[in-house]
């Protein structure tokens, strides 16, 4: 699993969907990729939808009204969760890239994901009770 970082091949692409035999680093990697793809999808969706703002108040305000249903709020929570996980995990990647906390990165990963879990719960409660 560790070596798939730097040696591209078509099989390696599908490998990261495979949960069998993953170590902590493998889980961090798969988590980072899934959230990355989700956030990229959301980014372009967000940009397209905000195009409503150029058309005037009707389009945008009716879109916001539509987004208040629980399914849309759940979708937003997924985006928030992906952002928190990807951002905190990314901090670990950036730190270790510059030589910080390399030997303790497993602990760092668990600590950051614990923070992520608490933050996701906080936003989940906040978004569904607002």
């Amino acid at each position, binding site marked *: 699993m*560790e*070596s*798939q*970082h*730097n*040696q*591209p*091949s*078509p099989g*390696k*692409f599908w490998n*990261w969907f495979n949960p069998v035999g993953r170590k902590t*680093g493998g889980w961090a990697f798969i988590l980072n*990729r899934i959230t*990355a*793809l989700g*956030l*990229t999808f959301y*980014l*372009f969706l967000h*940009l397209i939808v*905000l*195009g409503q*703002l*150029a058309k*005037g*108040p009707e389009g*945008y*305000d009716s879109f*916001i009204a539509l987004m208040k249903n629980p399914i849309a709020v759940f979708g937003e929570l997924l985006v928030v969760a992906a*952002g928190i996980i990807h*951002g905190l995990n*990314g*901090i670990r*990647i*950036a730190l*270790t*890239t510059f030589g910080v906390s*390399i*030997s303790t*990165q497993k602990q760092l990963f668990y600590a950051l994901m614990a923070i992520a879990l608490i933050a996701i719960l906080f936003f989940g409660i906040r978004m569904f009770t607002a």
Partner: protein
Amino acid sequence: MSTIIQNISKPRAGESTWLWLIKILTGGLLVILLLVHLIVNHFVVEGGLMTYANVVAYFQNPWIVFMEICFLATVVSHSLIALRSILLDMNPAPNVLNIINWVLGVVGVGAVVYGVWLALTIASK
């Protein structure tokens, strides 16, 4: 030591050191910019910018427009360079990689131009 070094981020085959470094640095910058983006859009005004009038009023502040454009350019660069990293794992042939580079470049420039146009359009309402 060698096993530890294998577990840190480094450029892939087919990814220049510059692109890789930009991906890491924009990632760090995004932690800050995303926080600012969320605070500005959801927490400064009570309940967030939830109406067209609210958004237009907020975009009258040039610093908001500037911040959103910086955020846009950073997040688009980060996401498309990273998408290229993921595609590189499929080991594309050189001509396919060439197409990927062009498509991602056009999408990236297009997204930023569109976003700047949108931000300035809202600001001028």
